[in-house]
């Protein structure tokens, strides 16, 4: 009898359809996927869409002098986003700073206390001192800026100008000047949202593969005309398809495609291939659900670092740039904050593609070896 023969495409399609159906009816992973979608979209929607760039500074001075008021106004009013609040006494200022017996409803983080004889001593060119209150969470570079403003007001009172001027026309802003429209935290979180969505699918595919290996259903598949190559191809397509679809859906919901939808889509596709490679490896290594989770963490913790580094600019070491997900994060950040030139994106895409090839090759070899050992 001549048996019907399935083509390679038919076999791969049959395995993909089976895996997608298995994923769709796995209540745990469907719940986790939906939870991740709702959670990240919820975070995006409920976080403020603008950045409050103003700094409130509490100031106490007792002397009422038009020139002093004008000098202070000139010194502090010139600083964009600085909101000066005057307090009638040092005690009132300190209470507003949270140093009193009761905590104020809205605590100040910075304060200036001018001594009572400040004007007299300045006019007499005698040394005087102004107390500066600074909360530990105030960035270091703000403190000297405040001190400079105090000095500037003193210069203004004595009729002297500052020896150096910095005309706005000569201020050079590196990159795009985002003064007044800084990137809100919810937008900075987009790369992390995308990465975490991909992570959920890494776990799901890893668990699916681990189940197939541990129950040895793969042996039954390979006793048919299906080859190990068909099996591996189907797992790769299934993983990439699921991860890309869900990460793309999330990016649509959080407006993550920005100015360069094709670029972000390409980056997400490569990211999906990358995590699929990881899933193949952890699926081959994991004996059960817990084993898969632990094996995943070995890869996913370092891979999450570039996305976290976006939240804390300047804190990441240079080696973060060699991590596989650095390119993915840079493209999402670049494309969502403004137009991204192809020349700028190319190195990131190339790096991501190279890491994809490495991760996928490692995953395919590991799973192939594991299946051969069954």
């Amino acid at each position, binding site marked *: *009898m001549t048996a*019907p023969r399935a083509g390679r495409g038919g076999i791969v399609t049959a395995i993909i359809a089976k895996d997608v159906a298995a994923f769709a*009816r796995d209540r745990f992973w469907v719940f986790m996927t939906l939870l991740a979608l709702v959670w990240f979209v919820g975070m995006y929607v409920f976080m403020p869409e603008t950045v409050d760039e103003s700094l409130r500074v509490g100031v106490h001075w007792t002397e009422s002098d038009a020139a002093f008021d004008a000098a202070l106004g000139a010194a502090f009013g010139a600083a964009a986003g600085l909101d000066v609040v005057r307090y009638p006494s040092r005690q009132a200022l300190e209470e507003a700073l949270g140093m009193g017996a009761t905590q104020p409803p809205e605590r100040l983080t910075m304060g200036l206390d001018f001594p009572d004889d400040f004007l007299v001593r300045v006019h007499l060119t005698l040394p005087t001192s102004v107390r500066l209150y600074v909360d530990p969470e105030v960035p270091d570079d703000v403190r000297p800026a405040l001190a400079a403003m105090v000095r500037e007001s003193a210069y203004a009172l004595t009729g002297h100008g500052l020896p150096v001027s910095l005309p706005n026309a000569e201020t050079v802003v590196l990159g795009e000047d985002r003064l007044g429209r800084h990137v809100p935290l919810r937008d900075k979180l987009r790369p992390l949202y995308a990465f975490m969505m991909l992570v959920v699918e890494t776990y799901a595919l890893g668990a699916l593969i681990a189940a197939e290996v541990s129950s040895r259903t793969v*042996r*039954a*598949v390979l*006793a048919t005309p299906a080859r190990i190559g068909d099996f591996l191809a189907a797992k790769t397509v299934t993983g990439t398809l699921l991860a890309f679809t869900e990460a793309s859906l999330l990016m649509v919901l959080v407006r993550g495609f920005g100015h360069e939808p094709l670029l972000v889509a390409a980056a997400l596709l490569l990211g999906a291939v990358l995590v699929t490679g990881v899933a193949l490896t952890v699926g081959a290594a994991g004996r059960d659900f817990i084993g898969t989770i632990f094996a995943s963490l070995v890869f996913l913790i370092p891979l999450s670092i570039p996305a976290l580094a976006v939240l804390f600019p300047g804190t990441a070491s240079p080696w973060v740039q060699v991590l596989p997900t650095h390119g993915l994060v840079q493209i999402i950040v670049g494309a969502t904050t403004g137009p991204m030139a192809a020349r700028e994106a190319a190195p990131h895409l190339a790096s991501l593609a190279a890491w994809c090839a490495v991760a996928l090759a490692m995953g395919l070899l590991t799973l192939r070896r594991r299946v051969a050992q069954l």
Partner: protein
Amino acid sequence: MDHHQAAITAEDIGFSYGRRRALDGVSFRIAPGEVLGLLGPNGAGKSTAIRILTGQLRARTGRALVLGTDMAHDPAPAQARIGVVFEEKNLYEAMTGEENLRFFARLFGIRGFDAAAALDRVGLADRGRDRVKAYSKGMRQRLMVARALVNNPDALFLDEPTDGLDPVSAQAIRRIIQAEAARGTAVLLTTHDMHEADQLSQRVAFLNEGRIAALDTPEALKLRHGQRSVRVRVRENDGVRETALALGHPDAGERLKRAVEAEGLLTIHTEEATLEDIFVLVTGRGLD
């Protein structure tokens, strides 16, 4: 029977797991419609032999031919025409019985597969839409058999197909094996159950420590290695006298005639060695 006539041919197959030799020069042939029982204790190499013959392992030495295909090179043409029942219950538990069968039918390239009929054949018609995780052990085993028959195979490999089953399920599976053999399918059956092997197999092979210790029909093995006798019980005075008459003895016929005609005859039982007795005799060890 040469290997052109045989559906399944093992030619001097050898295989090792590291330093442990699993198969050492194993040879046998199975004709279309024949059931060969491969008998042996755990670790004898039965499952390894099946894995090599189904193309999942490559023999280190020798040759495995199935339906004219050398399984070490391109097993796909043969794999399209074989069915395998694995020792482990490797079914997709989250899928229903019907879905399991349909998935495997797609791997064989079969269109319009009638899953309900296939399930009906193994007595699972009313459970086809239940997920396999809800199946009993016997139901899973019957589904495994149904899966192995999805492509109407010309060669069937059954690794302990009735192991641990209740008598009703085991009997149902034996009937299917007999029906497949009657259809012309070559069947390689591994089992611990000597009675089952005796009942189903035209020939049996004793596999011990990776080697074939004996290969013949059950009858020939019994004749060659077993002692045939008749046990006669006769009432005598207040008791019962029991006598064993060896049938190989020159005057066995005369002695049996006298026993039958004797007054007070209670029972006459023919006795022959079981395959298990012969296995112990040939290999010097039991099947456990």
